[in-house]
């Protein structure tokens, strides 16, 4: 066991203070948020007119408040209704021991994710795509198409709806099967795309731990040079599903890539509350989940997105707070809502991903084309755009990215609540030639020019 600290965490998940999920969500989280917002004078500071925060002192105040909130609350194991608290010493030790550099993949195709600061010239690395559901017959070509995008650093790909015609059902053996089979195909696809050592993220098709057991860190599956994806519930909650995945990844010597969104409009309330919850959660992933890369995710439930003004502001403050005050490897996601074949998807990408990159996140993944709602609504083109934006925005100033956001938000923000879902992959992308069809390519060329005119050169 290379991280014995997990033993104490597992013990606390069984023997920590008793607290129901309802008490946690409806009483403890809002109470903690309210106290910290008052104590640190953070109420009402969200500035939607300047969605990319440029106030370093504000970010630092949020960090202090979030750190305190992490120590006050801990995380709730919702399987057992037990609170996993950590001491100040444990938290600061975990933050010190967490890696500031991580190699994903092997050889010349590997990607090195590093600690970054706001406006850091070292590129924010990008993994594509998110786990949008893809039909079994489309998945191989689409995933290869994503792997062939030079700009994409790490390959995740969509999630498989079925495997050998069998529906992938939670807790069913089909999850163990898809975990392994997807991993096997994933590794082969990287070779086919000419990037055999490209880093990957596994696994995405199964929701329970069976996918990890079947598909990560065992011979023939996702190797331990890939990231092991471990998502967990909001706000500051874990469960046995999460902890099984953590223990399995540690058992096989893998790398833990964790994440969970703090919800604007949810239990933490306003954008300022979501930032606090996000910072607390990001910090606690290191002692509680032994994360190598931890998530700083924001989601606005009023919009089912975070590329609205409040979401962009919350993303920028969260990542500036974390990057300015720690050496952690942190991750952010831009949650687009528009679909392939729409300019809005590209604008949402430019604003969302550039905010994450310029604010100091080490790593980002995406896109969430069509809000992740529809099967096969994903193309390699927007995966490439996300990566290009992440790289290009990395050395810019916060002021510049704020200007870009202000210029582009009016082009899509009115449609966020009622977005255009766009078109299915075959209508806009040729998966045999691995190129966008003229209409979609044309939209990319136009938005690329607009971005360049604003100072973001893709």
């Amino acid at each position, binding site marked *: 066991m290379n991280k014995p600290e997990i033993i104490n965490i597992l013990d606390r998940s069984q023997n920590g203070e008793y607290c129901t999920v309802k008490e946690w*969500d409806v009483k403890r989280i809002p109470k903690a948020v309210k106290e910290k917002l008052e104590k640190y004078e953070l109420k009402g500071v969200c500035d939607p007119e300047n969605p990319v925060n440029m106030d370093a002192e504000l970010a630092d105040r949020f960090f202090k408040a979030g750190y305190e909130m992490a120590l006050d609350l801990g995380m709730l194991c919702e399987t057992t209704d037990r609170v996993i608290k950590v001491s100040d010493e444990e938290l600061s030790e975990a933050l010190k021991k967490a890696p500031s550099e991580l190699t994903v993949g092997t050889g010349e195709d590997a990607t090195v994710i590093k600690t970054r600061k706001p406006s850091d010239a070292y590129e924010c690395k990008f993994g594509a795509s998110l*786990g949008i559901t893809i039909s079994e017959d489309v998945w191989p070509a689409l995933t290869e198409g994503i792997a062939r995008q030079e700009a994409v650093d790490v390959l995740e790909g969509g999630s498989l709806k079925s495997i050998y015609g069998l529906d992938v059902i939670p807790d069913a053996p089909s999850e163990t099967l898809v975990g392994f089979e997807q991993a096997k195909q994933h590794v082969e696809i990287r070779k086919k795309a000419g990037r055999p050592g490209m880093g990957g993220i596994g696994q995405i*098709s199964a*929701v329970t731990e069976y996918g990890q057991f079947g598909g990560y860190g065992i011979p023939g599956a996702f190797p331990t040079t890939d990231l092991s994806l471990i998502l967990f519930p909001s706000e500051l909650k874990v469960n046995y599903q999460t902890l099984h995945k953590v223990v399995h990844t540690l058992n096989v010597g893998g790398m833990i890539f964790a994440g969970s969104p703090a919800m604007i409009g*949810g239990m933490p309330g306003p954008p300022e509350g979501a930032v606090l919850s996000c910072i607390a959660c990001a910090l606690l992933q290191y002692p509680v989940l032994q994360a190598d890369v931890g998530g700083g995710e924001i989601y606005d439930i*009023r919009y089912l997105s975070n590329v609205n003004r409040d979401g962009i502001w919350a993303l920028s403050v969260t990542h500036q707070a974390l990057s300015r005050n720690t050496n952690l490897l942190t991750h952010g996601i831009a949650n687009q809502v528009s679909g392939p074949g729409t300019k809005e998807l590209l604008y949402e990408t430019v604003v969302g991903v550039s905010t994450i990159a310029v604010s100091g996140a080490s790593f980002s993944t995406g896109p969430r084309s069509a809000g*992740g709602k529809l099967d096969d609504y994903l193309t390699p083109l927007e995966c490439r755009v996300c990566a290009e934006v992440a790289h290009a925005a990395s050395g810019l100033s916060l002021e510049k990215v704020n200007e870009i956001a202000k210029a582009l938000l009016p082009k899509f923000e009115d449609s966020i609540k009622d977005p255009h879902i766009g078109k299915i992959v075959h209508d806009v992308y040729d998966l045999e030639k691995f190129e966008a069809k003229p209409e979609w390519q044309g939209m990319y060329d136009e938005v690329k020019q607009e971005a360049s005119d604003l100072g973001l050169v893709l």
Partner: protein
Amino acid sequence: MDNQKYIEELKQFIVEGDDEQAGPAAQAAIEAGVDPSTLIKEAINGPMDEVGKKFQSGDIFLPELIMIGDAARVASDVIVPHISVEDLDAASGGTVVIGTIQGDMHDIGKNIVSAYLMATGFKVKDLGTDVTPKEFVQAVADEKADVIAISTLLSTTQPLFANITKTLVDSGQREDVYVIVGGGPVTPEWAAEIGADGYGRDAADAADLTRQVMTAGKKAPFAKPLVVGALKQ
């Protein structure tokens, strides 16, 4: 205290989400002779439009909405037994069994819908998260539910939704209950594919949808699902 003051006092406790005071205030109103149907209409259902608008505009958030729903439920539990059988149908929206499907731990959408439904007069049995199809179907029988409301944020759980409608058909219960679905990856087309009676795009739509299916005047299953909040091409 005149009747209107009892109504206003109860309304205040509900919009403040004070479930400890809402019960005694409802009891006091009943004992003072306030008409129970009027209490439901003016002190509970009445304020909910305003509550809904405040939630949508971000003046209140989910914890407040849940507490308001709890206060409304506590008050309803006191008032409803005093309503005559003739007035009961008008006062009660029906019984809804709600949960997040097996494999999915996301509960935000479900919690919002539950709160809205409770606050607008439905009796809600919240099964929580990670609910198996078998548990959903069992709850329909146990609660004599009128509606099953299923949500998910994970596209990978969708095969299980079809399992629920199939199990209801196979067990001969399909005509006894309306099935409505919603959540991030769920679409109207997919709702039709699995034989659901209704699709709601977001939580606010779900409460409206529940009312619409129950007052449509048609037995389940519907030939095509009622859609509240369609996606735009």
